[in-house]
């Protein structure tokens, strides 16, 4: 409890301290305070992850009632992920923000928001009083908003920030409805009351309650169709913030869904199918749109939606496992989902930091303008490559491990007896495979166009590798990515406590001797080692053989053409052209084309702007309708002060006369009654 109070005091201390420091000091102070907080919460998280759930009550106030703080293994797992990403992100941010040194006030706000964001997100993991939970949730939304709009002089950034703010509040509305529903029936804000209440009402009602919470958290997590804020907010924010947002802020939505699965007692089978369907759609839609993006950060943002989908598939099959009493299925599903949550926060934040390096060096995120960066920034390129392979779920890195667990779960599900689960399993398998294939198309495009070949436009002269200290947190993330890939068992064992919260059984179930499905994880590590040994040995043989032969360089073979220019290279647009033609019904690509004609050809142009079909349907058209309806009352807003005073007077009159009118109506009715 003392630790918790210390934890809350740290951001307050930061608020008092940071404004009075010099520009260089601000970042360092913010980072060290963040580090202190990460240590405190990390210490608690490790304890809870070992099975000693910590719980204590803050007395609270008359309004809130007692505030229970419960740190169980699930909170612990997410707190560790959060701390890892925040510490690496904060350290990376120290160097990334050097370019903005002259904006002292802006940096103050940014540093303080960062501290509050961390405090809020950790609090969300542990608070189990719905009213205080909402306050922490709101703090998180506001802090994230302030972090996103750091470059608020750009109108697009501001728009993205406000878009995020509004959608975040939609999420809060749904949460509020759910919480008010329960507290009005039970009179308690404790999460335990939700459990008791949902167990006492009919299944359809508790299902509705779960849906309310699910929508709220799905908006935060970015499940399709609630994802539209994500592709704007991530590119607009500074790169370390995008990395953290994609790494953990959207994961807090996933945490919420996990938490509500524990708290709300409902029909898990139908919940499972619902989550499975939404996740499959999110996964496919996310990656389909990611492929056609030309802005590197936007591409990564859409790709986050895909990965949220993959995590959701795990949660879905886990729920179905609980619902049908299939323990192996639920263990595999939840373990896969939890591990993929960690994995995604690792490689996605690494990718965003790499994108940040690129932005610092070239001042652009348009992949069509980049190219050949591997020669100027070899370390960034290698790190990006590792993350790209990992995110495609390809061995020997971590993405494969979690996807493998999910595939194992899905194939395990195939031993189910009835028709519907069989169909669901086979289509989910095919969907997961297709997602994997599409991800490969997406990341070969991203890596190939940005780093390989030669530059497609004139890059700044100063384009060079970032300093080593800035690369340090990225190396740390890369090391963890490789470690999970090579020693998956160690990390799976960490998961035994959180998973057992859901499956309800003792953690021993994860012991390979007992659940034979987990047998498969051990050989994965062996196979990855053999693969690496094979690659190394072939490489050494190649080295030995090549030493005896002549190695020369020459121009790329241009099929007889001797004066190729970088413009002739395959572009990102052409790389995915066949794909975008095939998937045209699902995509919305605006085209702007000026063909070359005439005897003496003039300049030709070809522009494409990818857009989001669901955004057009769900956000733009209702907004348009709303605007045209509200436009009818525009005459009221005529800009004349006299009219506004008149409106005020009319309003006051109406308010005063309301009781009078109602009383006279009332007496009129009484009069009628007497007749």
């Amino acid at each position, binding site marked *: 409890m003392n630790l918790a109070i210390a934890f809350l005091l740290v951001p307050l201390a930061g608020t008092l301290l940071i404004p009075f420091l010099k520009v260089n000091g601000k970042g360092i102070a913010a980072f060290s305070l963040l580090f202190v907080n990460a240590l405190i919460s990390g210490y608690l998280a490790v304890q809870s992850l070992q099975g000693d759930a910590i719980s204590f009550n803050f007395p609270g106030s008359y309004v809130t009632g007692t505030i229970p703080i419960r740190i169980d293994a699930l909170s612990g797992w997410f707190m560790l992920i959060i701390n890892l990403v925040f510490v690496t992100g904060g350290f990376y941010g120290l160097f990334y923000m050097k370019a903005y040194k002259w904006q002292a006030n802006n940096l103050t706000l940014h540093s303080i928001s960062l501290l509050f964001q961390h405090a809020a997100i950790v609090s969300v993991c542990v608070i189990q009083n719905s009213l205080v939970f909402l306050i922490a949730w709101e703090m998180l939304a506001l802090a994230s908003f302030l972090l996103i709009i750091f470059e608020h002089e750009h109108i697009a950034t501001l728009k993205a920030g406000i878009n995020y703010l509004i959608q975040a509040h939609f999420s809060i509305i749904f949460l509020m409805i759910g919480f008010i529903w329960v507290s009005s029936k039970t009179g308690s804000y404790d999460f335990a009351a939700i459990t008791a209440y949902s167990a006492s009402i009919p299944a359809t009602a508790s299902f509705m309650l779960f849906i309310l919470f699910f929508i709220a958290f799905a908006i935060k997590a970015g499940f399709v169709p609630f994802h539209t804020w994500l592709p704007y907010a991530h590119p607009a924010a500074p790169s370390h913030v995008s990395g953290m947002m994609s790494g953990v802020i959207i994961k807090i939505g996933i945490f919420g869904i996990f938490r509500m699965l524990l708290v709300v007692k409902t029909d898990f089978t139908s919940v499972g199918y619902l989550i499975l369907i939404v996740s499959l759609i999110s996964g496919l839609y996310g990656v389909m749109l990611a492929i056609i993006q030309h802005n590197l950060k936007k591409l990564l943002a859409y790709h986050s939606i895909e990965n949220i989908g993959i995590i959701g598939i795990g949660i879905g099959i886990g729920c179905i496992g609980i619902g049908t009493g299939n323990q192996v299925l639920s263990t595999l599903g939840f373990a896969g989902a939890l591990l993929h949550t960690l994995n995604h926060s690792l490689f996605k934040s690494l990718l965003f930091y790499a994108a940040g390096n690129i932005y610092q060096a070239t001042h652009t995120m348009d992949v069509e303008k980049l190219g050949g960066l591997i020669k100027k920034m070899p370390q960034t390129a290698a790190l990006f490559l590792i993350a790209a392979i990992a995110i495609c779920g390809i061995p020997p890195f971590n993405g494969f491990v979690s996807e493998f667990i999910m595939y194992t779960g899905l194939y395990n599900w195939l031993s189910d007896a009835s028709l519907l689960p069989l169909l669901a399993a086979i289509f989910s398998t*095919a969907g997961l495979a297709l997602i994997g294939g599409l991800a490969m198309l997406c990341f070969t495009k991203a890596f190939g166009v940005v780093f390989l070949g030669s530059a497609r436009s004139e890059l700044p002269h100063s384009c060079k590798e970032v300093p080593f200290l800035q690369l340090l947190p990225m190396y740390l993330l890369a090391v963890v990515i490789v470690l999970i890939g090579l020693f998956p068992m160690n990390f799976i064992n960490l998961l035994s406590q959180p998973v057992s919260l859901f499956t309800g059984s003792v953690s021993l179930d994860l012991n390979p001797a007992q659940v034979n499905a987990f047998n498969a994880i051990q050989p994965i590590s062996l196979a990855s080692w053999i693969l690496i040994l094979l690659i190394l040995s072939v490489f050494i043989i190649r080295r030995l053989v090549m030493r005896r032969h002549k190695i020369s360089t020459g121009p790329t073979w241009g099929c007889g053409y001797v004066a190729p220019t970088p413009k002739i290279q395959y572009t990102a647009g052409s790389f995915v052209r066949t794909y975008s033609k095939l998937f045209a019904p699902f995509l919305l690509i605006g085209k702007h084309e000026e063909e070359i004609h005439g005897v003496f050809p003039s300049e030709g142009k070809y522009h494409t702007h990818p857009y989001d079909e669901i955004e057009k349907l769900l956000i733009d058209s209702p907004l348009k309708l709303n605007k045209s309806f509200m436009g009818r009352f525009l005459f009221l807003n005529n800009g004349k002060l006299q009219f506004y005073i008149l409106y005020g007077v009319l309003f006051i009159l109406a308010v005063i006369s309301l009781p009078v009118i109602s009383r006279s109506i009332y007496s009129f009715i009484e009069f009628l009654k007497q007749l």
Partner: protein
Amino acid sequence: MLSVILIVLAAIFFTGIIIRTKSLASGRKGPGILQPIWDVIRLFRKGVVYSETTSFVFQIAPTIYFATVIMAMLVVPFGQSRGVLSFNGDFIFFAYVLALGKFFSIIAAMDTGSSFEGMGASREALYSMFAEPAFFILMGSLALLSGHTSFHEIFAALHIGSQISYALAALATFVLLMIAMIESSRMPIDDPKTHLELTMIHEVMILDNSGFDLGLIFTAGYLKFAIYGALIVNLFIGVIPFQYAIPSFFAIQFLMAVSIGLIESFMARFRMSHNPQFIVALTSVSLLIFFGVLLILQKFM
């Protein structure tokens, strides 16, 4: 272990037989069966030319591509004898390890900065993406039918009993054969002998490779074909003892090579824009297999 030896042996002759068949079909004598192997040995002895545009990616890619194919070979069983590595879900590993090789061959092609190689890379990425669901549905159906989730156990438990299962085996053979065609870039998806770079997929991706690297890529290609051949053979030899299984392995591989040679002699490559439709059709065929399995297990009640 047995499977590895058999696959390597088959790989030595496979491409030679295809080329010989094609030569005979067009009325020529053709080169010897072992000519592809001599070609590779000659390449291993040659020097290397690298493009100035390329980076380390281009240099490590062929190595990784080759290593992944070897790795994939290790998990393939042969009838009752298991592969070097065999575990639950090894076919998932099989598909994804091959994907690693593909990833590197695609980015190596992008590394040269050539528009032709970019074109090939784009096509390779797209087509292999479409082939993946078909493979996973096929393996899912077989897993459902046999109740196991590793190559060895699935194939060992698989025995062809009723008429429906004959049909299923035929369909599965078709799917695996077509995946082999896509993966090894043969007709009707890709034409390895075309003379126009615009119409190639795999060949155009390796335009800039030379010497030892090119040798590795060729060898990996030969092995890949034999690996898929071995998978097809495995569909049929589940319980047959080795003295019959091994000859039938070579017989089926030989038959496959000859039929590929004949197909390539008498058929033209599909139009590029028709390829995706064709590959998506594969997924439907594997769904057909899945429904067939459901029929056998009497799930439609």
